[in-house]
Structures are given as structure tokens and as C-alpha cells.
């Protein structure tokens, strides 16, 4: 466990020192600031715009960080050949992967937290005092964070057996497909046979369903987020991430690094 934590702490430090990361946070804060402006040129949707634009910024920027840095976690270490020095120490390959995963998850949590503070400040600027319904935003942000953690796990899995470019494509593809997992299940196609429909149905359950973490439409209209959705989403993200990371560890442990 100590090994995992050591790698995680180093990954976190490295990511925080990364200038690109700071720029992205600045961009997020800028977008949230822009939300205040957009709210002024429309009618009756100031809060809705601020919340949806803010959450979109948190989500999109988080996805960029999760995919691009997530893919680079393993490949960069291999390219710079620092991985060999690390693995020469008493460090298992799975511990290296787990540490990298935890480190980036921590980075994402810090980034998301900073952006959330910015979002609340923007919201407060047009509406004070905040009402109890405004705290549902935290549930939305938390669910976005869960989604990002799952994306990091997927990015790491793909980066374990393919090039960074393909890993980025695969992760982005799975993310988009995962948004339509529900649609795949309910899809009505005249030309498809029942067996093909069953296959689609099965795939729809196996794909990571990213819609599980989407409550933007709910909180944008200051509606409550069901608590069951939050804890079941947490469980879903935890189990799915674990499965993906176990798969990544299996691939990585068999990979010939020579």
C-alpha cells in the first residue's frame, strides 16, 4: 500500500506542476465567468445557464485531463524510460498502475473542487442567498468526478496495450458510446433479428453507461437529485473502475517492456 501511495503522491505532484493543468483550470473559471454574461442576454435562465455552463466546463475540461493525462501516465514513463528505473525497485507493476490511477484521481478531485468553488461564486453573484436546492450541485459535481475516474481507468487500460494516439481514440470512443448505452437498449430497429437485438442489449449493459453520472438537466432547474442515484452511481463507478484496472494490470503485467 505504501508503494501505491508513493507513486500516487508523485503523480499528483507532477500533474499539479504541469502548466497545461493550470491553464485548463483558468479556462474553466473563465467559462464560468462568461456564464454570468450569457445570463444577462437571455430571459429567466440566469441560474440555469450558470449551472449548465459551469458543469459543462467542469465535465469537458475534466474529460480532457482524464483522457490525455490518463493515457500519458504509462506511455510517458515508457517513452522517458523512467518506468524501467521504477520497476527495478521493489514495486509490482499493478502497484505502479494503481498508484498512477490514484494520483490522477486526486488531481482531478482537486481540480474539480477548485472549479466548483468558482461555479458557486458565479452562482452567488447572481443569486444570494443560495437556497437549499443549490447544494444539489455538489451531487452533480460528485457524479462528474466519478465519471472522470472511470474515464481515467479506461484510458489507462488502453494505454497499456496500444499507442497513445489509439488509446485516446478508444477512450473517447467508449465515452461517446457509453453516453448512448441506454439508447442502444431501447433501440427499435425493424431490420434487426431478435438475436441481434439481444446482442445489442447485452452490449448496452456491458458498456460503461456514462448517462448514470449525468444529472446536469436536473440540477440546472434546481431539482433534487435522488440520493439512491448518488450511492448507486458511486458503487457502479467503483466496481467498473476496479474491473477495468484489474484488466489493465493483467495486460500490463504480461507486457514485454524490453
Amino acid at each position, binding site marked *: 500500500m505504501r508503494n501505491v501511495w508513493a507513486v500516487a503522491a508523485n503523480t499528483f505532484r507532477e500533474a499539479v506542476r504541469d502548466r497545461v493543468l493550470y491553464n485548463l483550470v483558468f479556462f474553466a473559471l473563465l467559462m464560468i465567468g462568461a456564464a454570468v454574461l450569457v445570463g444577462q442576454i*437571455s*430571459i429567466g*435562465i440566469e441560474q*440555469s445557464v450558470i449551472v449548465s455552463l459551469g458543469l459543462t466546463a467542469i465535465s469537458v475540461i475534466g474529460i480532457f485531463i482524464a483522457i490525455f493525462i490518463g493515457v500519458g501516465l504509462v506511455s510517458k514513463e515508457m517513452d522517458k524510460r523512467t518506468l524501467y528505473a521504477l520497476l527495478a525497485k521493489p514495486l509490482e507493476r499493478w502497484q505502479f498502475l494503481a498508484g498512477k490511477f490514484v494520483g490522477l484521481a486526486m488531481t482531478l478531485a482537486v481540480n474539480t473542487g477548485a472549479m466548483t468553488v468558482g461555479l458557486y461564486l458565479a452562482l452567488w453573484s447572481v443569486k444570494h442567498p443560495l437556497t437549499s436546492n443549490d447544494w444539489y450541485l455538489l451531487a452533480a459535481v460528485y457524479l462528474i468526478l466519478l465519471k472522470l475516474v472511470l474515464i481515467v481507468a479506461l484510458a489507462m487500460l488502453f494505454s497499456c496495450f496500444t499507442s497513445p494516439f489509439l488509446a485516446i481514440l478508444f477512450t473517447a470512443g467508449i465515452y461517446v458510446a457509453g453516453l448512448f448505452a441506454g439508447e442502444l437498449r431501447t433501440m427499435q430497429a425493424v431490420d434487426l433479428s431478435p438475436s441481434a437485438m439481444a446482442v445489442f442489449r447485452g452490449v448496452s449493459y456491458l458498456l460503461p453507461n456514462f448517462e448514470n453520472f*449525468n444529472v*446536469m438537466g436536473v440540477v*440546472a*432547474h434546481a431539482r433534487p437529485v435522488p440520493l439512491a442515484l448518488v450511492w448507486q452511481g458511486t458503487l457502479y463507478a467503483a466496481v467498473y473502475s476496479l474491473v477495468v484496472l484489474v484488466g489493465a494490470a493483467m495486460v500490463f503485467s504480461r507486457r514485454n517492456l524490453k
Partner: protein
Amino acid sequence: MKRNPIRGLLLALVVVAGLGCVWQLQKRIDGIQKATATQADNLTIRSGRLLKYMSLEYSPLVAAMYWTRAVQYYGEKHRLHDSNLELLWPLLDVTTTIDPHLLPAYRFGAIFLGQKKPAGAGEPERAIELLQRGIRENPGEWRLYQDLGNLYYLDLRDYAKASTAFAEGSKNPQSYVWMKIMAAKIAAEGESPETSYFLWQQIYETSKDPAIKKNAEEHLILLTATLDMKAIDQAAEQFERQSGRRAARIGELVEAGFLRSVPKDPEGYPYVLGESGKAELNLKSPLLEKMLLAK
């Protein structure tokens, strides 16, 4: 390498002068484009469902953008006194398909659509379709029934349906008690200036759009004059009952103690009694033309 300060200054001057030239050139190009531009309304994607898919999980933001576009479109057309609002319905349709819970799009969109030209698109049937969609998607929002009732009452003058809409909305325990009163009053009386005044006042107080607010204010001014004249007529009837003759001028009603002073319309012009003995607007009052147009 030794730095040359004069060269640096010259380069800075070139940059500043260049930016100045660009600024001026852009202003000229804008002028040419403005003179040659043709007013073309355009909405590339009209399928709300397609846009919903394309917006991935960010549909609330896309819907907010489309709603903002609808508001800007309506505002711009209003500013240019252009009554052709052909894109308004597609914009509202797309907005509410992407986000069926965006209440302002139903509430204000129905006003934009329902009002007569040039204030609105003059499409009350579309406005009703929009509100009914809103009610289907948001059955707990009693304000949508209020808007539907307003539309039937103020724009379509269908008092039976207006009363039904207010009655349906009043079933929601969160609705205000006047919804029930409106339902009963409209069912019993049909159109009355008091009811119209109350409904326009509600629109004025709840609307944030300057154009809608101004329109409501104009209606309220006309209705104030109508209610004033109704009160003068009542005083004139009392005068006739007491004295056995019609009053020839409002001053007589004041002298007899039925009115405290000669009432003035919202524009400050005193009302007059017409040949029939009924109160009328002063011929000099600018409200006269507005009142005739409204009728």
C-alpha cells in the same frame, strides 16, 4: 547581443500603427457588409431530437443557447419593427425538445408567439401547442396553466377554455388562490376590464423581458382608462337618478359630489362626457388612437 532602443521603439510604433490601420479597415469593411447584406433568417438544424443526440450529455447548455437565440431573435426583430417571426416557432420547438424542463422557454415563448403582430408572431395556436407540451412535460407547474388561461382569455377571447385552464391549474395545491377565482369569474362574466387588468398585471409583474413588460404596461394604461371611464359612467348614472337629467359635463358630477375632482387619464388629459352622456377620452389625449387601435 546589444539591444537597440530606437529599433525597439520603431517596432512598437509599427505594431501600434498596424493595429490602428486594422481597426479602421475593419470599420470600413463592416460598413460595406452592412450596406450589401441581405436579411436572411437561418436555422440550419431544425430537428430537436438530432441536436439532443449531438449535444451528448450537455443538452441543458445547448437548450439554454437556443433559448437565448430565440430571445435575441425576437428582440432584434422587435427592434427592427420586423413582424416576420418565421424562425420563432422552430427555435422554441428545438429548445423545448432538447430540454423539456426549460420553463422560461414555454412561458415567455408562448407570449412571443401568441401576441398579435407586430408585438408578437400572431400565432396563438402555436403558443397553445407550446404550452400544452410544457404542461405534458412539467405537470406540476401550475404557472403554465395560468399562461394557457391568459392566452385563451387575452389573445383568443375563448372564455370557456380560459376558465377551464385556470380551473385545471388551481387543482395544484401550490397554485395561488386567485387561479380558482379567475376560473369562476371568467366562467360567469366572460370578458371584463377588471379581469383583463388583473391578468395583464400578473404578466407585467412576472415578466423580465422589456418588450413583454412594455406591452403589458400599455395594456394596463388602456385598461386603467377603461376602468376610470366605467367609474365616471356609474357616477353619471347616479347623477341622472338623483337629478332626473343627464350631466352635460364632468364638472357637474364633481359639483354634485359624485366625484372628488375631474378625473384625468394616465396621460394627464381630463376625461369628457360624450353626447350620449358616457365618459370618453379627451380628443387631445394620445391614448385615444391607441384605444381605437386596440379595439
